[in-house]
């Protein structure tokens, strides 16, 4: 009974703030509203006994990704016009895509054979996850870290300052043009 109340609380928070993310005209408000959506999802995880997943969700999505999203959105200019572009040419494709996405998720939910789990106080999951990552799933784990490393190197190259030699060449070139 109390579990149900907690579930409905978190579910309501998630759905309402999620709706606000989509419906809000102000893109910054939408980004900040994601905070409550992600927090609600973390709460649902915790309620399901997946405490490690809940805390990881908070660290990765709220502490990391959401901050980046807000940073990016804050730097963009907010359109002040009160007349957003609307019309069937936008609504129809959006509706079709949403329905397709919903159908896909629905099929996955119905088609999956969910493991039955005894209800009750959740046990400590972190040790099991750690052991799993270092034994059974060590290859996927290392593979994921390799992908992340590649992304990091790529980002570093993209934002890298040019080497002093290149800059010096350019300066010399500019000088020639001016003279």
């Amino acid at each position, binding site marked *: *009974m*109390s579990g149900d109340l907690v579930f409905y609380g978190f579910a309501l928070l998630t759905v309402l703030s999620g709706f606000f993310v989509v419906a809000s005209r*102000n893109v*910054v*408000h939408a980004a*900040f509203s994601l*905070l409550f959506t992600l*927090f609600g999802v973390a709460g649902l995880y915790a309620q399901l006994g997946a*405490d*490690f997943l809940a*805390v*990881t969700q*908070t*660290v990765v999505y*709220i*502490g*990391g990704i*959401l*901050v980046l999203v*807000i*940073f990016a959105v*804050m730097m963009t200019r907010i359109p002040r016009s009160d007349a957003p572009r609307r019309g069937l040419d936008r609504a129809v494709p959006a509706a079709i895509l949403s329905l397709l996405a919903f159908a896909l998720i629905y099929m996955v939910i119905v088609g999956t054979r969910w493991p039955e789990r005894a209800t009750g106080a959740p046990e*400590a999951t*972190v040790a099991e996850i750690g052991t799993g990552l270092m034994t059974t799933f060590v290859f996927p784990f290392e593979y994921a870290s390799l992908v992340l490393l590649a992304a990091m190197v790529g980002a570093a190259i993209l934002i890298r300052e040019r080497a002093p030699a290149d800059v010096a060449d350019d300066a010399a070139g500019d000088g020639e043009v001016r003279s």
Partner: protein
Amino acid sequence: MQVMTDLFARIFGDGLSPLGLLVAGGLTMALIMALVMALCAIVFTWAERKVAGFIQSRYGPMRVGRWHGVLQPVADMVKILGKEDIVPQDADKPLFLLAPFVIFVGSLMAWAAIPFAPGFIAADLDLGLFYIFAVSSAATIGILMAGWASNNKWSLYGAARGAAQAVSYEIPLALACIPVVMITGSLNMNDIVIAQQGGIWRWHFLHDPFLFVAFLLYFVASIAEVNRGPFDLPETESELVAGYHTEYTGMRFAFFFLAEYANLFLVSCIATAVFLGGWQPLFGPVFLPGLVFVIKAVLLVLLQMWLRWTLPRLRVDQLMHVCWKVMVPLALVCVLGAGIWMLATGQAG
């Protein structure tokens, strides 16, 4: 929370259902933690002004209250409560009003997993340490919210700096705690403190050389994490007026202030529990555990104040250099070194 639910169970007998006990216990603990936060702000504002005065060869507040201006924070509080609650005309009203509470709640949630004494912990979580780092990262969102909603260039600069700094220094902060987790084999704050039983030589910061370095790294990163000098770039008075809370007044400003001093104490409490033996005394059996814990944490806070009023502020590029090119690699070396130490001394299970 166990303490509180037991207490309520004794008072009400069978009058309360288990759910009622849980809610009552939880609310009481939350209230206690909020009071601890308020007390932090009251005590530490006075202490900070006295420390600053001492370092700058002056007295600091002397008039309110008979002895050394001890009632100054009370006077300040009354003043701040009486101030008008101003929302700038061009501010983003809903976000502007919400931001102080996001920051405050982020801070309050982290307090839940601090073990002040055996059994006196609001939520005895298996993931305690990880949980604390997770929820305190939510405060970054509050900083961005305040800075953006104020519609003020200083606020926005302060918020951008604050968020960048918090996101960066979180990494060495958490990495420095990993060796302790490796030794203890647990993220539970109670377990971490209990593992340090038996005098100062059993405390984690003296466990091995790598852990000593990890403790120093944690301490430096924690100063940056709470945006204090010499890492107070988000609030630089000389260039940004006050940073992300420039436009706030009255009670809402007080919430920022409260969260700031509470966070100062929070990071010191984490350091106390993780590295300095928590409620364990220097030697001998456990006595007055809560007091021992608070004394250790307050000494760390005083150390942070000393550093704030002694060291000049870093530049932005130096700030990022120190974090990413010095502290993160060093923290990784500590993790590796502590692991090798455990293998070499046969502590690895």
